């Protein structure tokens, strides 16, 4: 709860109060005292009225879909209901305007509700960043009749938006490295790459020129083609090192970092997926999880997990991920390819690095 006092209004009020006290000091009776009592009671009654109005006000926020897409418009509904016997007047809304845009609802809109009145306000909402965070209405602001006092109440239950990151090419520039794939990488159970085998057959039209075994062809005086052997594809390992900040402490800067981080992570997974390289992603979703993305379905699974939010269940999980990072950084398992994507990079470092 926050109380904001208008200084100019307060000065005028104090001046009127002093004049009333002076008047009552010279003249008794109802003329002066009723006026003085009224001036003195303005503040207490205003505070009481505001608290009662807030107590009896119910607020519901609804969005048409469970998961939103970043920067896409979605239908949003705000329902306000006055359950008390006092009308509500001059109420304004405080929005999470730093992270979402509501088209039909503005912070300057003044709302009045009669006794037992219910009002529904429809709008569209557009979330600017990917991640899981509160959106919509943040505060309810009430003022007294004379606009001296403004009390801000935080909405008891904010609307939690799950915003899916976009898949873009931001990862490509950083991950354009072919030689990260080496022969000792993890193997996929689903993706296979062809490698030249030892079996031969006669050349058939359509065979690739690179598959022709020229030595044997010369021996037999006819073209002979190698038959490919199926070999499991090599994978890449990516550690998503998210920050360990509780959600209620996450400010706009952190939201922006998380947005970029998520976008990078899913874009990286998509990038390798397009290249046919399986990707193993280690990320915190409560506990430390490992997901192998080597198909469209596995990518979607990973994408949904990431959209639900990255967080550490406890301090131990955070330490575990850091230890894992350090272990790989020290090159204990030098044959594998490990990429670290940091949410909170150090100065001078990039968002991702190969460890």
């Amino acid at each position, binding site marked *: 709860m926050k109380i904001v006092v208008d200084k100019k209004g307060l000065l005028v009020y104090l001046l009127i109060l002093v004049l009333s006290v002076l008047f009552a000091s010279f003249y008794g*009776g109802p003329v002066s005292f009723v006026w003085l009592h009224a001036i003195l009671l*303005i503040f207490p009654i205003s505070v009481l009225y505001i608290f009662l109005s807030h107590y009896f006000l119910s607020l519901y926020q609804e969005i048409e879909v469970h998961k939103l897409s970043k920067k896409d418009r979605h239908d949003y509904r705000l329902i306000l209901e006055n359950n008390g016997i006092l009308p509500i007047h001059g109420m304004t809304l405080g929005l999470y305007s730093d992270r979402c845009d509501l088209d039909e609802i503005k912070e300057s809109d003044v709302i009045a509700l009669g006794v037992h009145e219910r009002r529904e306000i429809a709008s569209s909402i557009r979330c600017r960043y990917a991640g899981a965070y509160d959106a919509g209405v943040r505060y309810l602001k009430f003022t007294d009749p004379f606009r001296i006092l403004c009390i801000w109440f935080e909405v008891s239950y904010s609307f939690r938006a799950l915003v899916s990151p976009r898949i873009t090419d931001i990862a490509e520039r950083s991950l354009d490295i072919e030689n990260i794939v080496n022969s000792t990488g993890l193997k996929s159970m689903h993706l296979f790459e062809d490698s030249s085998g030892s079996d031969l057959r006669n050349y058939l039209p359509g065979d690739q020129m690179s598959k022709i075994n020229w030595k044997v062809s010369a021996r037999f005086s006819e073209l002979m083609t190698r038959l490919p052997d199926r070999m499991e594809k090599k994978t890449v390992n990516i550690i998503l090192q998210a920050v360990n900040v509780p959600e209620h402490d996450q400010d706009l800067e952190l939201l922006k970092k998380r947005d970029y981080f998520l976008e990078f992570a899913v874009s990286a997974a998509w990038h390798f997926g397009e290249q046919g390289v399986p990707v193993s992603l280690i990320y915190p979703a409560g506990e430390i999880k490992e997901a192998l993305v080597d198909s469209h379905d596995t990518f979607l699974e990973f994408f949904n997990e990431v959209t639900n939010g990255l967080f550490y269940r406890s301090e131990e999980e955070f330490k575990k991920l850091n230890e894992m990072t350090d272990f790989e950084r020290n090159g204990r398992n030098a044959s594998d390819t490990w990429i670290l994507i940091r949410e909170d990079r150090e100065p001078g470092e990039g968002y991702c690095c190969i460890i």
Partner: protein
Amino acid sequence: MFIYAALMIAAYASGGLFGEDFEQKKDTFVLCVMLFSAFSAVLEYCIRLIRKGILPTFLSILPGAIGAFFLRRQDDISYLAGAIILSMCIRLAIGIIPFWKKIVLYGSFVLTALAIFLNITRNTFTVSSGYELFMFVCLVSLTLCSFQQLFIEKGKTAFPFSYFFILSVLLTVIPVNDDPIDWTGVIRAGQKIVQGADYALSSVSYFFTDVLDIKTNSTGYSTLTNLGGNAKKTKTTELIIHAKEKPYVLFNDPDSGEKMKRRRGLYLTGGRGLDKEVIVDFLLMLHEGSVSRETAKLFSHISDVNLEYVYLRTRDEIVPAYSFKLSSNGKKIEKGQSKNVHKKGYEIRSRYLDIDFGSQYLIALLKDVSANGHMENVGYEELSNYVRDIYGVGLNDIVSEDEYNEILEKSARFREYRQNFPDNGQKAFGGGEYSQDVIDSLDVSGADEELRSLAYELTKDYDNDYDKCRAIEAYLRQYEYSLLVPEEGDLKVDMTTAEGMSRLAESFLFETQKGYCIHYTSAMVMMLRLSGIPARVALGYCYLYPFEEEEFYPVEGDRAHVWPEAYISNVGWTGFEPTGSYPTAENLTWNRAPMNAGKSGEASYYMGPSVKKNTEGNPDEDGLEPQNQDAREKASDPYLRVLYLTVSLMLPGAGLIILLILFTVVAHKLRYTLGTPDEKLSIRVEQIKKMIRKYSRERIPDRGFLSEYLKRAPVQLQPDIEKIFCAYYALLYSRAGKASVSMEDVERAGQVMQRWKKGDFND
């Protein structure tokens, strides 16, 4: 609220314009107007449920018109007819004038200004009448509401009136005073805070003065004998008096006969302790004058007081004059000085003889004994019995027999001197075989001829010591009192010596002609001595009690004082007050006088207020005289009649409402029954829309789209309602004569209504 406030202000502002009768009953008149107005408003509201337009306004005043007709001939409650007519006019005005709300908005300010003006110029409004309080509650609430709407909202939607209603309710229950705010308590609290700060500063000053041994020229007990030049007043508390007696005396003013209050004074002497000699001399004087107990009580009584040292550092015991019992922490005090310096917190308990030296009885006694007394030695036993008889205390509580005998010897020395020099006049005292105390009290060293001449001139016409003293005292009181003396008077002399006092006296009397207590006292002591009257200086405090009784009485430094004492023959040492700004004994007199003996036979010595007995008339048992009897019986009549008339007015009103309701219901039914199917469907659609509005509890913007209503209808009834609406649309938008509503649609609409009323759609 506005009408009530306006009527009340108009009634109070009329100032008797409508006669005395109206002036007495104006509150009742206004109340009646409001009641009838409210009744008409309720009536109009009820009628407006059935009928719209201007007709309900006119119908609502109909019962009032009937009532006014009945009341027109009732002289004793004629104001009721006026009240009804006025309420009718108000009702019509509200109904007809379209800008009534604006009148209320701006009129509130006008009424408030008028009310304030009336209160300031005529002091019209009091809280004795609840009507006035309620009027101002209404006025203030309306004014605040109007202010809010005009200046805060700037003509937009006003803040809900429920806020101002809550304010009104609270304002009605909070009590209001007729007198302006009494800031005495706050001022006292402020004074206490200031005193507290002062005490804190004084403590620091007290500490550093002791540590650093700083001497100042501020007024105070410690600096009395070091002053002579310019002095500064100090408000540091040096002593605290704890006294149980009231700080004032009550007496009847002889001129006006009114009961008056006079503050008591108290002289505290320092450095003398138990001045037994003075007390014994006083008792002997009373004995010499054969003063009875009753007479003694006119100018003396025994008092107790506790003294606490605060910011004072001295070895002197500072006690009330004529103290005969002193103790501190249970230990007796005899001498005037102790071995150790007394500091903050030191306490003395004193029992003393409080004497009114301004009492005419005492003055007469003093003069008589001084002139004619013989002062033969009185035996200890005899005096002891006398004292016990007068004051109820034994002489052994004051002096022992040996001490008494010593005092007698000393007094004899003074008497001997006076006998040898009965009219000393210009004779200079040569000293010689007299004792040191006599010599000291007559030391005129340093006095010049001018001073001697002045003393002679002032006293030559008087033959007794007391009158001589009073003459010198009166002369000196003409001089200007000032703590700032001119340069030639800025002296630093030791007033414990005769030379010092002479120097001060001469500078004061002949050069500066202004000074403070030291100058006055020095002048009087020297002039008394030059007149042959033994005189000495007493130093201490002269404290004047406040009018209000308090827990304790602080004595500040500026109350430190010196005054002269003269030895009057056959009387003893008596104090005088020559300092101009201090009250004389007459100014502090208790004004006690003997009264006729009361029932017990003892004289009362205080004049209480005369009480007028109410001897006019002989009231009967219930306090009413016979001629009021008829008035009492008649008084019950108007109330019954008002009740009768009220009922008579309400019955036609209620009847009218019932008739209208019946008429409307019948008219509706007839309209439906006799109407065409199109009309029936229209009626049903309107009814369905009304029920949907009630069901959804939302404000449905009626832009002519029935779909807004359809989606808010109960789900179970929506299919049927949709069909009804479609039929209605067809009715509205079809070409004339083409589509017509079928009875099936009408019946469907009727069934939907019935189902809804029964709640049939709920699962």
